């Protein structure tokens, strides 16, 4: 299979969706000739015209609201927010409108929109351009939340998100855009709500989201040399959440680390932890659950502080060793 970048995978899914379905259109700031904040819409306006790939003014509330209105009336809008931090400006339309309309209307209207956005830290862009706020959205009934961790998942999940009849929040990590992976040329869907085992192992499970999946795989490779077999599970979608796959993995390994880049306090890692803690597994674990997440600080711009603000590969390695230091009969 050919190899393409995560960014190309997103671009390809958008391209195919525009070709397949007349109702699909894109809207956002600088998504035309500029190709979007990070280049995900490169070439699409040239191909599909300025009607279906629409440059908007800098008006996030209007972008989201227009997507809601169009979605309710027969279109399938895909809106881009250049940085996920700007969701704050679009918040009313997504949280109070998009998320609730189907329910409030007794099922009489649908809001099939996709909000795509670039999230995460690592570029030194500072506190207003580096956040991972996906758990805010995961807290809102009515929204689906997707966080692809590689190119293959990005393409398939984006297709599924576009076909979904609900508002779907699609979080792309900026540092993943340049990563590559094997991706089929034809269009395909990966169902929302199905977790993926990125690495099979027997000693310990790491449940990781977004960019932490890659870091978990790197940590797994390091500890493999010490004879520790790590299983890496990627929920892929926070809502709906595939609890079954998480539980099955931890039932096998009896040890678990939960890792997100997002700030740990009140973060989605708490939800993932609760899935294990509230199951039968809680009393069968060989070691306490370990939760790794971003430090409780606004993201600093300075390079080394920025790196210290989120879990890195060595913090995962340490966590693995810490968990493995518990002998099974101690627990």
């Amino acid at each position, binding site marked *: 299979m050919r190899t393409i970048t995560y960014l190309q995978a997103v671009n390809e899914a958008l391209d195919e969706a525009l070709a397949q379905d007349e109702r699909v259109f894109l809207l956002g700031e600088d998504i035309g000739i500029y190709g979007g904040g990070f280049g995900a819409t490169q070439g699409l306006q040239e191909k599909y015209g300025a009607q279906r790939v629409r440059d908007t003014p800098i008006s996030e509330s209007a972008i989201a609201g227009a997507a809601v209105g169009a979605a309710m009336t027969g279109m399938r809008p895909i809106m881009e927010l250049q940085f996920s*931090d700007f969701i704050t400006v679009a918040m009313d339309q997504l949280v109070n409108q998009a998320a609730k309309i189907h329910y409030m209307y007794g099922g009489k209207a649908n809001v099939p929109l996709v909000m795509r956005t670039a999230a995460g830290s690592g570029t*030194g*862009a*500072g506190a207003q351009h580096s956040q991972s706020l996906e758990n805010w959205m995961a807290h809102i009934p009515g929204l689906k939340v997707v966080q692809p961790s590689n190119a293959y998942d990005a393409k398939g999940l984006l297709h599924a998100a576009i076909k979904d009849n609900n508002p779907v929040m699609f979080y792309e990590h900026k540092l993943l855009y340049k990563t590559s992976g094997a991706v089929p040329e034809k269009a395909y869907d990966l169902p929302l709500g199905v977790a993926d085992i990125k690495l099979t192992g027997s000693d310990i499970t790491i449940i990781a989201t977004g960019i932490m999946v890659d870091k978990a795989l790197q940590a797994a490779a390091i500890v493999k040399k010490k004879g520790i077999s790590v299983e890496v599970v990627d929920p892929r979608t926070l809502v709906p959440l595939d609890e079954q796959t998480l539980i099955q993995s931890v039932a096998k390994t009896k040890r678990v680390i939960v890792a997100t880049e997002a700030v740990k306090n009140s973060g989605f890692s708490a939800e993932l932890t609760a899935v294990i803690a509230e199951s039968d597994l809680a009393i069968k674990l060989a070691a306490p659950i370990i939760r790794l997440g971003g*430090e409780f600080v*606004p993201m*600093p*711009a300075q390079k080394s502080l*920025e790196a210290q603000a989120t879990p890195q590969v060595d913090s995962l390695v340490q966590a693995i060793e810490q968990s493995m230091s518990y002998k099974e009969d101690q627990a």
Partner: protein
Amino acid sequence: MNPKISMTEKNGRLDNVSALRKMWEIRIFEEMIQQLFDEGELHGTMHLCIGQEATAVGGAGILDQSDWIVSTHRNHGHCIAKGTDIRAMFAEMLGKKTGTNEGKGGSMHIADLDVGNLGSNGIVGAGFPIAAGAALSAQMQGSNQVVLCYAGDGATNEGSFHEALNLASIWQLPVIYFIENNQYGMSSSIEHMVNIDLLSERGKSYGIEGITIDGNDLDEVAQTVAKAVEKARNGGGPTLIEALTYRHKGHSKSDKLMYRSEAECRQWQKYNDPIVRLETKLIQQDQMTPEDIRLLEGSIRNEFSSLVASVKQDEEPTSNDLWTHVYAEENK
């Protein structure tokens, strides 16, 4: 250092020689930032204001130190014109503890409250209501301060612009909304993003006087701002100024400049450069010779080169700094 560029009292004319110096400081700062970025010394982003020096110096540069500015992502010129320490600005961008924001903010968040720089902003349009709030504070405290709020043309399409202008108007706040219309918001020509000819027309719907000016003419900028400041100080309320200008460089580091023609760029860069225009005037008026100007430019370059060399030796924040400043200290 008092940054204020003085106006001679009779005719309201600027001390153009000091103004030129500030404009060159801004341009050379930006050129050096670009160079540091190209050399891989800068982590993070930057939005250069080359070509927009007259709006910075004719605006922020003529305020009293106690007046406030509220700036944007394209902030370096505003910050320098308001008197922010240039060494500390270099240090901020190089991630040093000695930076204006101790390295935590980076380019887009440079602030220096001691000289009336209330801070720059990464969120387009976020400054409009903040400026209204600072002006409200001045009004409630009877401090006689005014607030100059910079924003780009694109930012006037955010809801916050409209909400803030209305609020400033009904409360008659001492605030000046200063739109640097550099023709584009990233790749989007303002022509395609609004359906009116002049952004200053937008003031009317909120009961605010709106003026469009040549933003590359230092005198015109300074005189317009000075009048608006006087009005605001005397309780006359807000003014909306639209200054027509151009950004010579791309939006940020990743801009491939596909959306504007080279001919258009050349037109602005060559024939409508605010620095060249001021220099021509100074030479015609026999206030400076071309030789004086070359010396001035050269001395700033030397000065900034040694600043950067010394900033590079500064200490970086330590791990402990990650945790400081999350919450303010409680009163003892």
